[in-house]
């Protein structure tokens, strides 16, 4: 970020007035600067008070839709900050690991999905290699999940492990792609760069794809629908954004 005084952006951050790139960069700063983190918390409280002063509007017409969605939406696992020491976190993380693995397995069982992935990166690799990447992440002591809804239906989840330096993309009930179109995974770096990290064609149910990019410096994982022939390096507008730094 070219802005000289990062700590003066606490207000703009609390008011959600930063661009996505600036927001990602500022979050990095927050992780290192307790003074700014405290100030942001206070100012978010003030911003929320502005919101609270608006006249409330009935939301009863949303209730049925929300509850239908809630009933089929798994909750995030409780997670520690990414930089939490492994030793201190070990006990809880093992629990989390088992849960992650169990829930992914449960999804397979529940949907009877055939798991197919043939990202550009994986196309050459054999099934064993892919499975090993998947099991490496799912059995890592520090596996964490991050999720986001997908425009058009379904959900996108990223399971990542810092220690394995790998991440999986788990798509659930994604909308079918039109003929000639594929789903592409992109990683959005902390500095805003967008890099393709694999592609796949969704089948019914659940799909698990290893993300073909090192996790270092990745802020978000995005999902796009594109023509299979499209090999540009510019990311089209995504249908899901999974924030790894929330």
């Amino acid at each position, binding site marked *: 970020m070219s802005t000289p005084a990062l700590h003066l*952006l606490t207000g703009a951050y609390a008011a959600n007035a930063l661009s996505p790139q600036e927001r990602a960069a500022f979050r990095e700063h927050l992780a290192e600067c307790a003074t700014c983190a405290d100030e942001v918390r206070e100012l978010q409280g*003030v*911003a*929320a008070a*502005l919101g609270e002063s608006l006249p409330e*509007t009935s939301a009863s017409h949303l209730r049925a839709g929300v509850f239908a969605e809630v009933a089929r939406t798994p909750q995030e696992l409780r997670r520690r900050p990414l930089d939490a020491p492994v030793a201190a976190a070990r006990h809880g993380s093992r629990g989390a690991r088992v849960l992650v693995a169990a829930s992914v397995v449960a999804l397979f069982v529940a949907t009877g999905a055939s798991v197919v992935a043939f990202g550009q990166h994986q196309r050459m690799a054999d099934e064993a290699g892919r499975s090993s990447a998947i099991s490496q992440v799912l059995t890592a002591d520090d596996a964490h999940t991050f999720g986001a809804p997908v425009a058009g239906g379904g959900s996108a989840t990223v399971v990542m492990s810092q220690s394995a330096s790998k991440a999986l993309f788990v798509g659930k009930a994604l909308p079918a792609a039109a003929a000639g179109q594929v789903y592409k995974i992109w990683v959005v770096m902390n500095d805003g760069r967008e890099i393709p990290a694999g592609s796949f064609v969704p089948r019914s149910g659940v799909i698990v794809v290893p993300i073909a990019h090192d996790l270092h410096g990745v802020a978000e994982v995005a999902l796009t629908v594109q023509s299979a022939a499209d090999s540009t390096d510019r990311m089209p*507008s995504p249908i899901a954004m999974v924030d790894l730094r929330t």
Partner: protein
Amino acid sequence: MQRSFKPALRSRVIGIELPTEDDLLQAAAGGDQGAYSALFELVSPAVVAVVRQVLRDVAQSDEVAQEVMVEVWRRAPNFDPDKGRARTWILTIAHRRATDRVRHEEAASSRERRYWSRIEREYDVVAEEVEAHLEREDVRLALRSLTPLQRAAIELAYFEGHTYVQVAEALNVPVGTASTRIRDALIRLRDVMGVTP
């Protein structure tokens, strides 16, 4: 179980402590849909209010508000009561999703038109609308204690969902000035209102 409901009834008369929104969110974090349902009743009207303020379009606002409430359920296990109130956490998510949507719309094909039509709304009109709208007297008074530039900056950012760069353009000031005025405004409001995060 021989428990009659009389003691419960009596304690209700004396005044049971109702679970707070923070309690409900933490219960929901453990998968309790009943607690989530109660929380929905309490906070969703404010969520809709915030989202509509920023997005204006009712159909889009409903869509975003629904996504926000599902996100609250999904992310509940990672709500940290030591870092602020449940309502702050929820309204922060709501405001962020609403501004994300506004910017996504701006980034779509109608970018220029939509953006300029929003910016062209005279700030005075915005300020008047906002003030007439606000239900909390302490917030109205606190906003009046700001300098005109602070007030314009925070209202364009929070109530209109502009980035600080757009705020700078709208008010014709350098971007650094816009970002510091937003911060100054929030700090001043905090001091006047005595808000707890």
